[in-house]
């Protein structure tokens, strides 16, 4: 294994002087770690913007009728909240920020296969983000179609749909290029001796995700182009008034957007598989089962898209087929959850902040997963389709799943990335706020949805008032928690104590290099002899 860099030669990637200076040393850097950090900053900024919009939505729902905004503004705010959170936060989230930073280090490489393509990918992300947000301020007004751009309304509305679609098109390219880079890097740049089954499970998750990015994203690209052409030239592919088929749009949209759900969650599951062995000091239970389950989820995930469309009027045969396949996804997901819990069993658990995030993830994701069975079932879906139940389910899996693990990853790798440490007590304090606020907000929405409260409505009936009020209070508690969390990280970054090289006792390769790492990660490329969690098996780390 690689030894720490000699103190006299050590220059971290943060202090490294390349051919560019000042801000350009960041904006034009092809170093995977700097690009990862820039993504991370972008993602946190967009997350804060999306969270603010979400808080405005919940404030509006405090009372029936108008509270702070009119209905058209409400439509625009929930659309923008969705677009920012989906396309700019959780899709790039873990792969672009932590994948970029840690994939090369964890496989013993100096960088990704195509560093310049990586930088291009980052800039496409920024351009796409700016275009999406600029649709707010340009003539035509903010878009009001929801993040799923359903036709025929997306064709007929006068708001800036084409610009927002074009932004999503560009963001898709960014995602494809990152995927290509990761697939190539995993195939070509693994350290000597690191076979596929000696790779850390986070790398398996990134690898599976990268394949989905490469194969599924072009479908949404083509669909977006078709909607733009339809808006500009009225070619009649989706518009029923011109002989088009609006359900075809839903098929094409979800052929990408359902696998995209796995683009969002698989990397998070990979992070969980790293954090649990570290904080239980045990070799992961069922390494191969977890690795194969990532591939199975990626594969089966392609064939379940129409469960978003059970009430759209598609054929009964299709509904039965897609319902069946949807239930199949539960198998590899269950494999993962049971293996994680089995790893913890009799482990020497050290309940540090990243582990607490993971524990919270398992609870929230399981609630989200089990309520997914209600939605995957044809009969019950008819009752709760298009209600708050769907919104709550989605937020339990994506927010309680991916975003919580995004923050788990940030707390886990923060000392490695910045060489600084945050205050653990404040982070735990924030976690309590987040957990209580999250469940108060979203569990209430399950009940509201079951009782018939439709999603995306600006107003509600008097009988929903109490639960709407409780849900909004939950939102404020949760936002408070996130503000404390982000402030604590910023404080740690600026004034925190120096972090050790391996504060958690991790055994994967990133913990063998200094904190923060040097520009080329390793003085000498390591030679791998054992699986990633082997050392726990031998009991060398207690």
């Amino acid at each position, binding site marked *: 294994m690689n030894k720490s860099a000699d103190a006299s030669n050590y220059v971290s990637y943060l202090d490294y002087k390349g051919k560019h200076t000042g801000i350009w040393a960041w904006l034009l850097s092809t170093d995977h770690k700097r690009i990862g950090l820039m993504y991370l900053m972008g993602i946190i900024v967009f997350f804060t913007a999306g969270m603010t919009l979400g808080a405005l939505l919940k404030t509006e729902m405090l009372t029936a009728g108008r509270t702070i905004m009119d209905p058209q503004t409400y439509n625009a705010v929930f659309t923008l909240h969705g677009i920012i959170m989906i396309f700019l936060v959780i899709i790039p989230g873990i792969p672009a920020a932590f994948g970029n930073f840690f994939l090369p280090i964890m496989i013993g490489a100096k960088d990704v296969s195509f560093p310049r393509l990586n930088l291009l990918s980052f800039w496409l992300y920024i351009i796409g983000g700016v275009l999406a947000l600029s649709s707010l301020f340009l003539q035509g007004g903010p878009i009001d179609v929801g993040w799923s751009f359903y036709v025929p309304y997306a064709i007929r509305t006068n708001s800036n749909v084409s610009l927002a679609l074009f932004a999503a098109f560009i963001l898709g390219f960014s995602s494809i290029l990152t995927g290509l880079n990761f697939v190539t890097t995993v195939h070509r740049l693994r350290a000597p001796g690191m076979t596929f089954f000696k790779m850390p499970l986070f790398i398996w998750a990134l690898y599976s995700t990268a394949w989905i990015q490469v194969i599924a994203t072009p479908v949404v690209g083509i669909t977006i182009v078709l909607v733009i052409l339809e808006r500009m030239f009225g070619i009649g592919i989706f518009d029923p008034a011109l002989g088009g*088929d609006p359900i*075809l749009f839903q098929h094409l949209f979800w*052929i990408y957007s359902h696998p995209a759900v796995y683009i969002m969650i698989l990397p998070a599951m990979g992070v969980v598989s790293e954090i649990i062995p570290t904080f239980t000091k045990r070799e992961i239970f069922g390494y191969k089962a977890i690795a194969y389950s990532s591939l199975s989820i990626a594969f089966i995930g*392609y064939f379940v898209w129409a469960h978003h469309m059970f009430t759209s009027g*598609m054929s009964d*045969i*299709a509904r039965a087929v897609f319902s069946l396949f949807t239930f199949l996804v539960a198998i590899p997901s269950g494999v993962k959850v049971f293996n994680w819990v089995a790893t913890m069993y009799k482990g020497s658990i050290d309940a540090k902040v990243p582990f607490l995030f993971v524990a919270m993830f398992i609870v929230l994701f399981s609630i989200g997963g089990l309520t997914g069975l209600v939605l995957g079932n044809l009969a019950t879906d008819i009752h709760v389709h298009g209600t708050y139940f769907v919104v709550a389910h989605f937020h339990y899996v994506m927010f309680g799943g991916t975003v919580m693990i995004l923050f788990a990853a940030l707390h886990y790798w923060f000392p490695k990335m910045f060489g600084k440490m945050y205050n653990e007590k404040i982070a735990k304090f924030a976690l309590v706020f987040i957990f209580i606020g999250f469940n108060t907000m979203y569990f209430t929405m399950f009940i509201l949805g079951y009782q018939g409260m439709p999603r995306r409505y600006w107003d509600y009936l008097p009988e929903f008032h109490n639960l709407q009020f409780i849900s909004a209070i939950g939102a404020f508690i949760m936002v408070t928690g996130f503000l404390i969390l982000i402030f604590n990280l910023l404080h740690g970054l600026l004034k925190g104590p120096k972090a050790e090289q391996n504060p958690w006792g991790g055994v994967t390769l990133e913990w063998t290099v200094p904190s923060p790492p040097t520009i080329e990660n390793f003085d000498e490329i390591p030679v791998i002899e054992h699986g990633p969690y082997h050392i726990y098996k031998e009991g060398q780390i207690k």
Partner: protein
Amino acid sequence: MSAHSENEHVIGYMPYITIWLTLIGLTILTVSISLFDFGTLTIIVAMIIAIIKSIFVINIFMHIKYDSKVFLGFIIAALVILLVCLVFTATDVFFR
């Protein structure tokens, strides 16, 4: 690494030009037959010509014919997924 060295597969200009002309010919054929009504077979005929064109492009222009078989495997995997997506969509469109 692939055992093949690049030198073994240097291709002259002629095959590229021949394939290019063939592709143009097939494009003209696609446009020409659109003037005839094959009924339900129209899309199948158009797809067959498109598949022939793709095979030329993938094998020669993309060098897949001369490269490691793993790349061919990747392309086939992507095509299989595409095919399954089409079949699954058809379970709706043709039984609605």
